[in-house]
């Protein structure tokens, strides 16, 4: 079995307090779902900001792989390749 690709999670400013101030975190994961599992195991506080109790990505967050919104790909089952940048961004909503 080949090793999972290493990707970079870009952490938005308001969430850096939940991962020791890190702006980027390297994760070995072949899909977004696998990356979230990894975060749940190793970055629980950060994970709780991204996913609700059911494990779903919070409703008002958009997830991007590089510049692509994963709603146009395969959602959390989108495949990741080495060097990808994964970003969770608050949707532009509210006032």
């Amino acid at each position: 079995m080949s090793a999972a690709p290493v990707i970079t999670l870009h952490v938005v400013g308001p969430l850096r307090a939940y991962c020791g101030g890190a702006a980027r975190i390297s994760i070995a994961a072949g899909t977004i779902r696998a990356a979230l599992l990894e975060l749940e195991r190793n970055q629980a506080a950060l994970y709780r900001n991204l996913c609700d109790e059911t494990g779903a990505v919070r409703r008002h967050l958009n997830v991007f792989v590089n510049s692509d919104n994963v709603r146009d790909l395969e959602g959390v089952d989108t495949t990741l390749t080495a060097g990808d940048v994964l970003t969770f961004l608050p949707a532009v909503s509210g006032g």
Partner: protein
Amino acid sequence: MADRVLLSIGTRKGVFVAEAAKARRSFALRGPFGTGVPVYSTLVDHRGAARVYASSCSPFFGMKILCSTDLGKSFKETKSAPAFPKEDGRALANIWSLEVGAGKKELWCGVEPASLFRSPDGGDSWEMVPGISNHEHARKWEPGAGGLCMHTIIRDGNRVHLGISTGGHYLSEDGGRTFRASNKGVGAGFAPDPYPEFGQCVHKIARHDDAPGRLYMQNHGGWADWTGPGGPRPNIGVLRSDDYGLTWRSIAAGLPSDFGFPIVVHPHDADTVYVMPLETATRSCPGGAPAVWRSENGGGSWSRLARGFPKKESYFTVQRDAMTIDALKAPALYVGTTTGQLWIGRDGGESFECLFDSLPPIHNVKVTVV
């Protein structure tokens, strides 16, 4: 240190704290804390060293509980926030109420979707209370306009009263282990059956320690003109119980509208109760002229208190937790508006004055003397 009056103000853009000397001539404002995130519930817990709690309800990053141990000069997140067990299938959407529990550190918390949580350690850990959260009715409750929220928690020894919109009034007589719907006399306007067992849109419930059997309720009124199935339902909006919430009767006669959100009891007189009637269709001040209405005989009759309020062109809403009263000898009311004004009603509401006129929309105001 001389007595200080402390207000916690939950707004759409964070929590503010205002402090004044006992005379309450002017308040110094601190904040916002939890900046940019709605705060629907606050609590000043003065068991031991005072703590100020606030629910920080981010639509993006989820729910947090903030705690201040320096009277609102700074806030930190508690170690955890309420959360449903993963296998439950529900996800927390909002935190609507925070109340003190037993002992020195227990907290109770009502959330959306309507459920109850309890913390034994001042908010650092939480457990769901299954007697109401998994009640056989729980999956049948429906959200009101504000969501499916548990907004009222009243503890009275082994009795616990809960207010749920839209679920109704639930009563426990065993300290919160089990609950039953207790809505006899509480009307609903949005269902063919005017008096269902449960499912009423209760807006707020209040009581006084000197009259523990008596409860006051602001229910979702405004159904006097309903002509559909079940017929009109006048005056179902403001109610009173004299038997610990087993039965309820209307005390709305004499009010300009039986629709409103908050209901508040005078700290030194269980017969004196305050409501803020609103127009049903707009949820705003009748005729654009804000007024608090006061009864000094337990709802037998009502008088209008409007001195100092604008006489016209004011169309704000006062939300369910945005009116409160302090416990000083001549108590003052505090009224927060959706237009970001915080009003003080001195001498029990005889004369109103605007303390702050440009805060974010106000969801919640609590007061204590520390």
